[in-house]
């Protein structure tokens, strides 16, 4: 049987030739992402903004009365809600962000949720409450701090390990690639104003994990080639490494996409944001390994000498590893 080959043998794409324009574009994208986050902001869900979210089904209707719902809730005096279809046509998610002067009170989210639910139960006999999240301002503030802290800590911890296993340049390169991925993901969420919740943090973590995986695969090949071809100019060597791992990169990305796309289209509505973010992350993560993580090594002066002192130690470690595996 003839097997599928997604990437022809012996590709020799000059990835690094365009490293300056690509890098500039990447930097601009990062800057644009942060500019978006600063100006347009993130569409925080209740996890991070506080307030309440109610999910409901109108059991007797084909379509939820979204416009009426909006005006019903506006009448309660908590400001204007976000009412969106959620899942089926007759299912909605209603999000109310409490005004600052109200949300200072710890009970506010609870009280507002009770008011919203009883109002809607009164107005629509076929209103079925599927779930609700009420988060007080204090707790949501903690969630924000926690999420930022955990993200930064995880990124630094990982960079430190790469530094120890490879060289400091690789640690910095890897960290920068992660920063790029997280920035672009945030930018995307800001641009399309998708709901940004704790789940999305989990998605960003998955992106970090995936991108890291990719970066390490490329770095590992670079390290191997640095030891093998001591005379080769670094940009050429990086190109070679990226090309050699290209088949694997394409195959892994494709496989993951194939696994994610059904989840994106047929999965539960509650998983959509999460899956969308991870899908985006696969593209961003692959790109950043090639165009952020690798070229940075050139500029930070990685060369074949980088691994001479480490060679013996690394070899010992590998031998030990081989013995275990």
């Amino acid at each position: 049987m003839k097997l599928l080959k997604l990437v022809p043998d012996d590709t020799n794409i000059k990835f690094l030739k365009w490293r300056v324009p690509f890098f500039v574009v990447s930097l601009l994208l990062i800057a644009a992402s942060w500019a978006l986050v600063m100006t347009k902001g993130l569409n925080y869900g209740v996890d991070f903004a506080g307030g309440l979210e109610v999910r409901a089904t109108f059991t007797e209707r084909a379509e939820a009365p979204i416009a009426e719902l909006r005006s019903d809730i506006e009448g309660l005096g908590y400001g204007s809600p976000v009412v969106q279809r959620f899942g089926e046509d007759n299912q909605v998610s209603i999000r109310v962000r409490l005004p600052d002067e109200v949300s200072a009170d710890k009970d506010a989210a609870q009280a507002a949720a009770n008011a919203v639910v009883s109002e809607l139960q009164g107005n629509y006999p076929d209103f079925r409450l599927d779930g609700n999240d009420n988060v007080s301002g204090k707790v949501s503030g903690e969630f924000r701090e926690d999420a930022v802290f955990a993200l930064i800590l995880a990124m630094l911890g990982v960079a430190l390990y790469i530094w120890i296993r490879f060289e400091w340049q690789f640690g910095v390169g890897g960290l920068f690639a992660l920063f790029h991925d997280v920035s672009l993901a945030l930018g995307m969420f800001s641009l399309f104003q998708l709901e940004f919740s704790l789940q999305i943090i989990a998605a960003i973590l998955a992106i970090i994990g995936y991108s890291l995986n990719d970066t390490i695969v490329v770095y590992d090949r670079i390290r191997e080639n640095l030891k093998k071809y001591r005379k080769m100019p670094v940009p050429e060597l990086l190109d070679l490494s990226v090309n050699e791992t290209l088949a694997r990169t394409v195959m892994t990305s494709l496989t993951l996409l194939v696994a994610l796309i059904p989840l994106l289209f047929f999965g539960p509505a509650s998983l959509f944001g999460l899956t969308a973010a991870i899908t985006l992350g696969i593209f961003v993560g692959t790109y950043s390994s090639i165009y952020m993580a690798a070229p940075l090594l050139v500029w930070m002066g990685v060369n074949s000498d980088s691994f001479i002192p480490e060679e013996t130690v690394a070899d010992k470690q590998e031998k030990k590893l081989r013995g275990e595996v």
Partner: protein
Amino acid sequence: MLEFPTWKKVMLWGIALLGSLAALPSIFSLTNQPWPESLPNPTVNLGLDLAGGSHILLEAEREQVAAKRLEDMEEAVRNAMRRAEPRIRIGDVSTDNGRLSFLLDDAGDIDRARGEIEGLMAGTGPVREWDLQVVDGQRFVLTQTEAGLDNAVDAAMEGALRTVGIRIDELGTREPTVLRQGDTRIVVQVPGLQDPEQLKALLGKTAQLEFKLVLRGATAEEVERGFVPGGEVLPYADEEVYQGTGVVVQRLGGIDGETLTGAVQTVDQRTNEPVVSITFNPEGGKRFATMTTKYTGRQFAIILDGEVISAPTMIEPIRNGQSQISGSFTFETANELAIQLRSGALPVDLTVVEERTVGPDLGADSIRQGLLAMGVGTLLVMVLMMVTYGRFGIYSTVALVINVLMLLGIMAALGATLTLPGIAGFVLTIGAAVDANVLINERIREERKRGRRVVAAVENGYKEASRAIYDANVTNFIAGVLLFNFGSGPIKGFAVVLVVGLFTSVFTAVPLTRMWVAGWLRKARPSDLNI
């Protein structure tokens, strides 16, 4: 490479089979199939976001504990000074700015007063709970130390935890979780609950029951000007009765919720209205008898959390230690009150600061759709792997299935919880497992292309690819552990799956497939590889 000692084979197969078998009960339960009861059944817990249920986070205020502690101290100081022989006279008592301060009438009492106070300040533990300062030789100032307050908050939270636990048990829901979180919080998780309103109503009430004497003649103004010793104005609980004017009440020593041994919801035989019958403990019953004898014909205010719920007239002394609380109850609210009184008052007020409820229907839908989509995705991955890597793809595919099973099985055995963010972790794990196989297979391809012989190519493929697999997984492991320790709830859910998944994916993708490949190479001795 080809040699796999028998013990190693047995071990690899054993781990794979055991891990996969452990997943079976979970799979049966996820797809709603009956699982034989005689067999062990560790099932993976589904988070409330998937299974439906309520998550409620309650918070107490440290300041409230501090204020109450200061009040108690004030009372204790007054009593001690009164009881001292001869009595120590004090005045100008204040609890402003979080400090208790008072003035001795006679500066000569200072040593005796200090002795009394030091007796009161002694805590139970080794830490100093109060700081005492004497200003101008006559003014005593007592300040709570942070350590003392910490102890008090801790004790209050432990008490609150017990009370909350009892109240939830009374509801009869299955498998509730009640845990302390941080210094001043309690998290309550109740799976499959239909009506969180009832739960919240039950938990949110402090349920401090008090009996006081109603002073019909006194006015609010007189209370304000301090003409009524021990008097205060309280509102009615019932809005319709209340209408803005409070009722003046006076302390009645020593009868409160603490002296109860029982409370049940019953029906008043004359009015047919739901009421709560309460039983005092012997001491409380004696005191209640004394009070009702002394004040027969007067009105008693029954006060719950600072609101008067009813004010019946004591027609005759009550000596049997039993009484009845009436007051515009429905059967539901009467039952709630009975539960709250039985469980005792919360030592500190709790506020719901976070609530998440997922209806059971929505949860079930999510699971069904999620499983279906993941099934389709996995199938597509398998096809892709097989058409790309042939025989090696089949090995990878089988390894992938075992990986998913083992991950589920180990999570079940650990009693871990699978949440929605956990599914993101699942996806990442599957990605990592696939990637490991892709790395190995691509490397074998490459080594063959460079002209290595079959066995050497396979051997090198595994060896060279392992390094990257190892590094990638250790980095993710570091991230996972950090996230687990520093992240909040949902992030933890992700981290658990990630960490367990790293082990299962490396195990299935590397040694397991290697064993299969080695077995095949030894048996078939192929001269070329179709990869």
